């Protein structure tokens, strides 16, 4: 063991174990969050579920549509879209990714780890940015890849009913699915940091993403036309259909609106993280 002789500000010199400069940096905080992510079995498991869901659901749906084609009703055939069918798993992936985003933060509060984390990084905000960086990186890579795998695999299984990436709007939908899921994960992290409680964070996240659009349906249609397209999930999902719906925002405009919501959530989480006691 190497040891350094060091003069403390306040006492006599004593031998200290070599522990480096010990300075906290944003990069080191990111590395710490990466260690935390990969050493927690539950986070790895949920991520696997997200990937399997994203790929598996679309493959199964594609296989059965092709096998049952002769028995499909006219209405089903009219609604059929090879891209949407192969990417059907995004719903399940969104549940897993969003939940894990919340848990990444609330798990620290429920176990008390947050006190150790924030004592190690008293500036606090680097922890939020680090969690965001690590989780965004992981979800972006995995969901983008899964989206392409689901699409390409689905097209193989759809046989003669399949489409290709060159067809109009198709590449956009496949890419947008990966982007949308990444943003859902980021929103989950923000909600986790805002609410600091697992059940509450998950309820709030899916309340906003899934329940809010459903509530809209009971409003007068004139209101719906104005408000509905600006709801976070509606805005983000505008880019997820090949044929453009005039009631929705333009695809990437909608995604940008969704991203703005995520940024607002993050800023709110950052302000409260600085202000509240741990």
């Amino acid at each position: 063991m190497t040891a350094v002789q060091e003069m403390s500000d306040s006492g006599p010199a004593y031998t200290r174990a070599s522990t480096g400069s010990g300075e906290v940096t944003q990069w080191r905080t990111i590395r710490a969050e990466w260690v935390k992510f990969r050493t927690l079995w539950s986070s790895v498991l949920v991520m696997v579920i997200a990937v399997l869901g994203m790929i598996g659901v679309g493959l199964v749906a594609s296989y059965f549509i092709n096998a049952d084609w002769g028995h499909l009703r006219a209405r089903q055939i009219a609604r059929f879209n090879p891209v949407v069918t192969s990417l059907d798993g995004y719903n399940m992936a969104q549940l897993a990714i969003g939940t894990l985003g919340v848990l990444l933060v609330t798990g620290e509060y429920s176990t008390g780890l947050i006190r150790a984390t924030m004592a190690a990084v008293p500036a606090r905000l680097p922890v939020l940015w680090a969690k965001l960086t690590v989780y965004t990186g992981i979800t972006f890579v995995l969901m983008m890849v899964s989206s392409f795998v689901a699409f390409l695999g689905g097209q193989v299984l759809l046989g003669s009913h399949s489409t290709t990436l060159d067809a109009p709007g198709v590449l956009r939908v496949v890419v947008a699915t990966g982007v949308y899921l990444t943003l859902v994960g980021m929103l989950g992290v923000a909600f986790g940091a805002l609410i600091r409680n697992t059940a509450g964070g998950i309820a709030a996240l899916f309340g906003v993403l899934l329940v809010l659009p459903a509530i809209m349906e009971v409003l007068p249609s004139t209101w719906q036309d104005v408000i509905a397209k600006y709801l976070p999930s509606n805005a983000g999902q505008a880019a997820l259909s090949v044929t453009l719906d005039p009631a929705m925002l333009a695809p990437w405009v909608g995604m940008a609106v969704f991203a703005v919501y995520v940024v607002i959530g993050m800023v709110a989480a950052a302000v409260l993280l600085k202000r509240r006691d741990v």
Partner: protein
Amino acid sequence: MIEAQGLTKRYGGKTAVSDLTFDVRPGIVTGFLGPNGAGKSTTMRMIVGLDTPSAGTVTVNGKPYAEHRAPLREVGALLEARSIHTGRSARNHLLALAATTGIPVRRVDEVLELVGLAEVAGKRVRGFSLGMGQRLGIASALLGDPHTLVLDEPVNGLDPEGILWIRTLLRSLAAEGRTVFVSSHLMSEMALTAEQVIIIGKGRLLADVDVSEVITGSSRNVVKVRTPKAAELRELLARPAVTIASSAADRLEVTGLSSDEIGTAALEHGIPVFELTPVLASLEEAFMELTRDSVEFGITAPAMESVESAGGQR
């Protein structure tokens, strides 16, 4: 060196810590005593910047904790509630903490060895006993080999061997010149470990004293005397600030005089004394005496009164 100046913390309408001013000096173990709910944990959380004081300041080595660039090198903290995700292994927990401040992996294995967890380092913390969890908390506190240690009830859940181990550890860390601040409500433990004690009750500072002084200053110190002329000696010693009890014809228990004073007085009057034994109050008794009026959650009658009056103020 920890310096608190007028440190105050209010949660809503409740004042948990009220205008605390104290210094914790390097080179000795300083005990932090107080009954349940006195505000010990709250004070310690403020020292490491987890809770923001409502008023006042607290600094570590001259700076607020959050302003230190290498906080884990400065202060190692063990906070009351476990601060560990139970789904991770002990080693991975420490590796994550170490990564934050660039502490090498070697140091992680070193502290695991030091606290006696090397063999279970790869096991998930979920399966740990209370004492093992506590040892992991201590390992986290020691990770950065800090100048200052802030430990909230470190002996909680430790077996006698563990308690002895931590007592020796704290004293040797202090002897090296580090600042060691340890809370407890076990006065007997503090009597053995600490040289200085800061005593609080209901968030207020009650005493900041040398341990040996608390005991010698206690009104519960008694001198046991055995003499054939008990009645004569009793008359001789009687004065307002002195109480004398007697458990047998030839025995007296004197409070308020030292054994020197009693022995000298007896000699001057030719009273034979066969036994003269000063019996010091335990720190426990001395502590009870100091905090009697400020117990928040007590079972004794005066304590119940104070709970009621505290409730009435809301």
